[in-house]
């Protein structure tokens, strides 16, 4: 909880650090800020406290999710390289500040007790993301992406807010436990659920599904991911997704679990639809970044599966999966940033698979990190991703979501096809990539994430038992 206050202040501090002439100090400072916040966050372990007139609640669940979010942010900042040396068009202080602000939003989304806090957290996160998406001001695609994201995001926020209003109208409470009690008692009393509550629940779910980009609310994802500067794509696909699923899980498992039978079918079918649409569409993509966008949608599908199954193990499954997925995604984007900048086509970074051709020859570390992250995303054993999928599948199996399971297994197979494309390009195709110079901290990040992915693949219980 203190991490929220600290991060807000750090964000402001970052803005003012920008006035110093030395912009090299920004990245280390931001890293220190995040580490400090991480420490504050971990200090809340094993305490359950309600804050600010029951607005926020910190417990082990929120600490865990906050940790995943902060770790992902840390990794993204570590590969940001101070946002380049372009004095005129790059504003690192502002970027870092906005990133910190958006993390504040994300943390609010995992600690909320009152639905208003969910809404505010979501808005802080979203508005920050709109800005960051459009931060490459001279790039038309970046502008287009930001506008699209904003338009559709505003729409989704409206739906979410409408849902909150309806739920309040039906239950008379904003507190998730208050709503939960109402729903459960309603069930006990055998009285019919009112359409108002029903529609409210659906609209809230839909609003959140938009944020985590589940089909059919996923349309913004590929365009926005592709248009946004890659570093923010990495941020978006890890932090926003984790926060979104944390919020969705918390809401469904606390407030609406009493009406499980009413909303489960929606998620059940949307999960299958998301998996099919994302994986099938990803097959044809030629751009690595766009492929990663569809990959992100497909992972939303897998996560939806465990949310749908609503088992006791669901929260640790979400956490493990989010962690494994975040690490692998950041690694993949980190490699892509280097490679695409190294190989430009028409003066712009080449983001297609062809850019990776022959990577392994002169850059074995990059190729290996990429391969490990891709294998993890594809869910190949001995990587973290395998266990992530495994836990999710076993949750779904316990609930008996057979259709989803069949679809998910088939689509995992399809996934292997497109995840292997960059591996094949970097190891088996001829290319002429020279050795790319990597900064030490960048290299360290790559090594750490790669080792983590393998370590979690070998010993999943190391982390799974904590959650």
């Amino acid at each position: 909880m203190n991490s929220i206050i600290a991060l807000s202040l750090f964000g402001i501090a970052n803005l003012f650090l920008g006035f110093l002439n030395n912009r090299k100090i920004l990245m280390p400072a931001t890293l220190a800020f995040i580490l400090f916040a991480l420490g504050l966050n971990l200090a809340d372990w094993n305490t359950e406290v309600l804050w600010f007139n029951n607005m926020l609640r910190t417990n082990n669940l929120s600490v865990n999710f906050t940790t995943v979010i902060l770790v992902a942010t840390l990794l993204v900042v570590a590969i940001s390289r101070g946002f380049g040396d372009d004095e005129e068009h790059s504003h690192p202080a502002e970027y870092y500040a906005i990133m910190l602000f958006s993390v504040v939003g994300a943390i609010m989304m995992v600690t909320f007790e009152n639905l208003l806090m969910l809404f505010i957290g979501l808005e802080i996160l979203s508005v920050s993301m709109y800005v960051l998406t459009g931060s490459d001001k001279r790039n038309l695609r970046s502008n287009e992406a930001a506008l699209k994201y904003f338009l559709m995001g505003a729409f989704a926020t409206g739906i979410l807010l409408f849902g909150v209003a309806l739920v309040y109208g039906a239950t008379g409470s904003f507190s998730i436990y208050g709503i939960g009690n109402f729903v459960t008692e309603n069930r006990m009393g055998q009285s019919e659920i009112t359409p108002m509550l029903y529609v409210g629940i659906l609209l809230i779910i839909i609003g959140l599904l938009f944020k985590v980009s589940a089909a059919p609310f996923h349309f913004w994802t590929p365009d926005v991911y592709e248009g946004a500067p890659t570093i923010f794509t990495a941020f978006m696909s890890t932090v926003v997704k984790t926060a979104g699923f944390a919020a969705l899980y918390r809401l469904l498992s606390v407030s609406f679990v009493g009406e499980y039978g009413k909303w489960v079918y929606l998620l059940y079918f949307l999960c299958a639809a998301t998996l099919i649409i994302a994986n099938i569409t990803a097959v044809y993509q030629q751009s690595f970044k766009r492929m990663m966008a569809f990959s992100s949608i497909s992972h939303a599908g897998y996560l939806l599966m465990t949310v749908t199954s609503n088992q006791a193990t669901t929260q640790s499954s979400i956490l493990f999966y989010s962690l494994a997925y975040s690490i692998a995604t950041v690694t993949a984007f980190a490699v892509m940033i280097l490679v695409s900048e190294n190989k430009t086509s028409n003066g712009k970074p080449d983001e297609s698979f062809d850019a990776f051709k022959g990577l392994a020859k002169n850059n074995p570390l990059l190729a290996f990190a990429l391969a490990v992250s891709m294998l993890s995303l594809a869910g190949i054993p001995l990587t973290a991703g395998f266990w992530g999928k495994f836990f999710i599948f076993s949750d779904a199996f316990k609930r008996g979501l057979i259709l989803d399971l069949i679809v998910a297994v088939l689509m995992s197979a399809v996934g292997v096809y497109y995840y292997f494309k960059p591996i094949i390009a970097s190891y088996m195709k001829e290319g002429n990539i020279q050795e790319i110079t990597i900064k030490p901290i960048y290299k360290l990040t790559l090594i750490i994430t790669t080792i983590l992915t393998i370590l979690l693949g070998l010993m999943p219980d190391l982390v799974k038992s904590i959650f």
Partner: protein
Amino acid sequence: MNYQPSDYLPILVQLGAAIAFIVATMLATHWLGPKRHSKLKDDVFECGIESIGDARTPISVKYFLVAILFVLFDVEIIFMYPWAVNFKALGWDGFMEMIVFMGLLLLGFIYVIKKGVLKWEK
């Protein structure tokens, strides 16, 4: 009194009739009225003077920035009215909270000035 959704059916019927009437009238005038086109008749007309250029003129982005900042700070001030009214009831806690709030606002203002947003001429 317990209404069923089917009780609203008459309203739907009336709505349908109203829309149908409008559509029908518009279509009718479209078909029935005579139309003659000529260059002069279709030309843009502006008080007797020939029109020049586009009606949309670009305005400096600074204008929007200043406008937005004005609205921002203006709206924040509104926040102080309810606080002032309840000043006594809120006591020292309220006072400190307002100080924090104003402090943050002030920081924002300093940031804006240091960024040079308010300098019209560079």
